[in-house]
């Protein structure tokens, strides 16, 4: 999505529509076919091959957690909520599933194309944000390793600042993150090589 404008390529994508047999399903399926997607309707459960699907539309009125082969909020594809009743409990349930877009019933000709594009964009953004957060968390988790590695390198006679500089130049030489370099330094040390200076790559 980096280029912004782009012919949105939805041709051949697979969508699952989780809704009891109803005019809503027909309206969605017709429009999905017109847009070039393959529509599969299902109720009350999603079939196993949903995991290879590109989009899931789900009914909020009658939906429940056990219909999905994933935990609430962990769908591996964009979700589009089909809202009929706006009862607060139902909205709360839909929020727990982190739908990326929504359509309000009754569903006509309009709204489905934009829901697909909005859901895909929101899902991608959420996924990349989650990956970024996971990477940052992992780095924070390695703070202690860095402190330990600096202390270990100080043991070679360098002062604190010199040890930190050494760790950074090791990381650059190995072309890895500071955290990874610190892990390697500690691995050397625990293998009893602590007194030797780690070799530069």
């Amino acid at each position, binding site marked *: 999505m980096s*280029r912004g*404008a*782009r*012919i*949105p*390529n*939805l*041709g*051949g994508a697979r969508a699952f529509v989780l809704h009891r047999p109803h005019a809503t399903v027909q309206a969605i399926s*017709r*429009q999905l*076919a*017109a*847009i*070039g*997607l393959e529509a599969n309707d299902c109720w009350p459960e999603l079939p196993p091959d949903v995991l290879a699907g590109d989009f899931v539309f789900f009914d909020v009125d009658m939906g429940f957690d056990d219909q999905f082969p994933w935990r609430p909020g962990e769908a591996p594809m964009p979700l589009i909520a089909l809202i009929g009743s706006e009862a607060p409990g139902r909205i709360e349930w839909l929020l727990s599933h982190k739908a990326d877009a929504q359509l309000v019933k009754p569903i*006509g*000709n*309009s709204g489905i*194309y934009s829901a697909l594009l909005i859901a895909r964009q929101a899902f991608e953004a959420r996924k990349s944000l989650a990956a970024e957060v996971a990477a940052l968390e992992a780095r924070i988790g390695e703070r202690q390793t860095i402190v330990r590695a600096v202390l270990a390198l100080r043991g070679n006679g360098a002062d604190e600042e010199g040890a930190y500089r050494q760790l950074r130049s090791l990381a650059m030489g190995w072309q890895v993150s500071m955290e990874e370099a610190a892990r390697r330094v500690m691995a050397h040390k625990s293998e009893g090589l602590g007194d030797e200076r780690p070799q530069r790559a």
Partner: protein
Amino acid sequence: MKRRVEIGVLYSHSGNYRLISDACRTGVMKAIAAVNADPRLPVEFTPVEYDPQANIDRYAAGCAEILEKSSARHVIGCVTSWSRKEVIPTLERSNGTLWYACPYEGFEANDHVVYMHACPNQQLVPLLGYVVPRFGADGFLLGSNYIWGWETNRVARDLIADAGGRVRGERYLPLGEAGVSRLVAEIEAARPNFILNNLIGTSSYAFFEAYAELGRRDPHFTPETCPILSCNLTECELPAIAGFADGHLSVGPYFHDAEAHGWDAAVSANMPGSSFEASASACVHALAQVLAVNPDAGWADLPAVFASGAFKGPFGDVRIDQQTQHATLPVEIGRIEGTSFRTISLTNGVAPDPYLSRYDRRTVFPRPGLRVVS
């Protein structure tokens, strides 16, 4: 005894795209006369006309008036995409169907609309596929400031990128604006390989005239090296730009070129004057064939009828895709010669793909194969 059926006709009789709406209206009226004179068809049409006077706010009202005050369930009309989008809520409320006879920018498939003219895979995509290998891939994009220009140029930006080209500029003029000198100066500075013209009506005519003047000053800006490309220019507007437009290119489902189609003089005299006229006629003929089978057929019955076969009309046998309600059409690329077009490329039976979901840049812009050197 023929059954009398009212059908709505919603075209402006005035305004800056009047040449197009007149061509559509001519097509409708000629086809109504033909249907009414045809003893094999059990229906006879009475047109219920409303003239929105090129005022965008009168289209929805006019459509509502036709659907409420007459027995018409089917309306043939609208030229701009803006007006089509204006009438859709009325059609949905009143169970009507619009038969739309103009090219448009795609990305729509409403079951209250039948799309009888070309969508982007039947106009813009094949036109750039033809032009890029012959003239180059760098384009300058022009448009009137509304959805047709915006969306067509948006797709063109992607196509140009896929062809390995660069957009040298993109400019919009308000509808009806005829001051084009700044735009022409920008084109002169940018020196593209082609100009994609999505201006409509008077703006487009003023641009053709100014571009011809530029070509006299600088030979790069002639149709041989830097043509103007249009996706909606037909014979019906050529009188407005006669003398300024020779050699430039347009694309559509039909051009009135007797030689390319192998028509003799008698056939040629009876064929529609432009694709707008042809498409509007095709709407009436298809509707007559639908109502001949089921006189009460409404929007909900159309998909089943469309699935059952093709309709005879000025494009030959036309099939309408039941899923998108867009027509399968010929794609012709034409070069302007005076007040007519010479067809320089013709592909029959191009299926509609309004969402460009089957678009593949490798087939539209094939790169010359790399040779293995050993």
